[in-house]
């Protein structure tokens, strides 16, 4: 498996220190939490991403993020990377994050691009869920 060092490091660090890398969950029923879950076990990957937001003026800012991912090493690394990109961003800024940003940062090979697509879909869904509660 020709993984970039970045993927391997991200994966291993997340595995070693899950709390530091935002593994976990919020109560999905909370009003300030948005949950997105994409993928399917039969396909080999499922990502669950949760954002916790606070309101500042007209803006909703992502205060904290938690995730859990079932999938290959690069799926897990993609989720962990995405989570770090999200913290502190406004929802509008978060919507701008695209899968190719992850591809670049993690140097994902073509065969693993779907992992980054999954990550992008999970944030979209989490934002939708949050916005539907406001």
């Amino acid at each position, binding site marked *: *498996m020709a993984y970039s060092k970045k993927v391997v490091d991200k994966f291993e660090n997340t*595995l070693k220190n*899950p709390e530091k890398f935002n593994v976990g*969950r919020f109560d999905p029923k909370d009003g300030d939490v948005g949950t997105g879950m*994409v993928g399917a076990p039969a396909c080999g*990957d*499922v990502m*669950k991403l949760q954002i916790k937001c606070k309101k500042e003026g007209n803006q909703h800012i992502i205060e904290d993020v938690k995730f859990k991912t079932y*999938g290959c*090493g690069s799926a897990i690394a993609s989720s962990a990377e995405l989570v770090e990109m999200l913290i502190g961003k406004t929802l509008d800024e978060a919507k701008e994050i695209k899968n190719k940003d992850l591809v670049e940062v993690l140097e994902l090979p073509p065969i693993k691009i779907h992992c980054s697509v999954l990550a992008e879909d999970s944030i979209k869904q989490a934002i939708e869920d949050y916005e539907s509660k406001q």
Partner: protein
Amino acid sequence: MSKSKPIYLDYASTTPVDERVAEKMLEYMTFNNNFGNAASRSHSFGWQADEAVELARSHVANLVNCDPREIVWTSGATEADNLAIKGIANFYKTKGKHIITSKIEHKAVLDPCRQLERHGFDVTYLEPNEGGVITPEAVKDAIREDTILVSIMHINNELGTINDIASIGELTRDNGIFFHVDAAQSTGKVNIDLSTLKIDLMSFSAHKTYGPKGVGALFVRRKPRVRIEAQIHGGGHERGMRSGTLATHQIVGMGEAFRLAKEEMTNDTEKVLEFHEHFLEEVKKIDEIYINGDIQNKVPNILNVSFNFIEGESLIMGLKDIAVSSGSACTSASLEPSYVLRALGRKDELAHSSIRFSFGRFTTKEDVKNTLKLLSNVVDRLRELSPLWEMHLDGVDLDTVEWQAH
């Protein structure tokens, strides 16, 4: 530990060459040793090479109890499978065009069958039972008037399950059908007695039995006589069945490896059996694991386990100090999870989460102990990361969830 060599538990994929084998091979390469062409009849260089090749042939024949004249050297089990299947099909095509094989065969059998389908042959791919075994009954039910060949593997490479080749042989012989067996995983692991088995062709590989890569053999029965159409032409070596200058050093290596296999089989098996039992006992302590393949009917050197709610490739990445194989799609070029596990009727997610551990001659107790320790740790950590595990603990039935496949 990360700096040292990883623990090798992938013997079913390939084995290291035994030092004793490597030493023998070195005697057949350089000017100061024996480098002759076994086909040279006019000088001693050739005679010596020929002698070495024939001695190796008798070692191979001796392990499986056949006549050395029934052994044809090939470049490996893949070529042997190709030669057997295409060789029979093309030689006997006027007799019939139906071939029976199974869904759990190695690609070296499946791909030649697919190729023959493109040339007008009709192939039946038998389903294994739940335990990963092709039953003689399944073969019997598939036999037709125009069946010319049955090709069923002896030991499945992913599961270690053993097929009843003795009973299948009785069936095929009674029906006048040729029977080919891929025995790449068998040599040195289980006894094979071709003097009693009603098998017409059998494929062997050197590198699964502590010999070198790049060499194998095909057993082609003389009585009753089996004829095959050669697939490689040019010089008429190997009684016209496989041309090409014999790779003396490779062949000597295979011969020595198979001679040692006969000597070491009892030792190897006893040792591996102990590892298998210990491993099984410990791995069963992990929640939600599934052993793939009938545990009562398999070789102890291969153990295939699915770790539910974890994806196999991430498990392999987590176990970076252990060399194992996975049925996960992500580790295969095709992005499909193991077709063998799917054929057993395992759900896709369990196929994705499978790991094959295979033990061998150089595995130590320490290797097994360290692997088990690391394994339970990594499984726990990956499950902590898994949304599926979380749902499972919350009592959610994953089969009722509407997934957003992509």
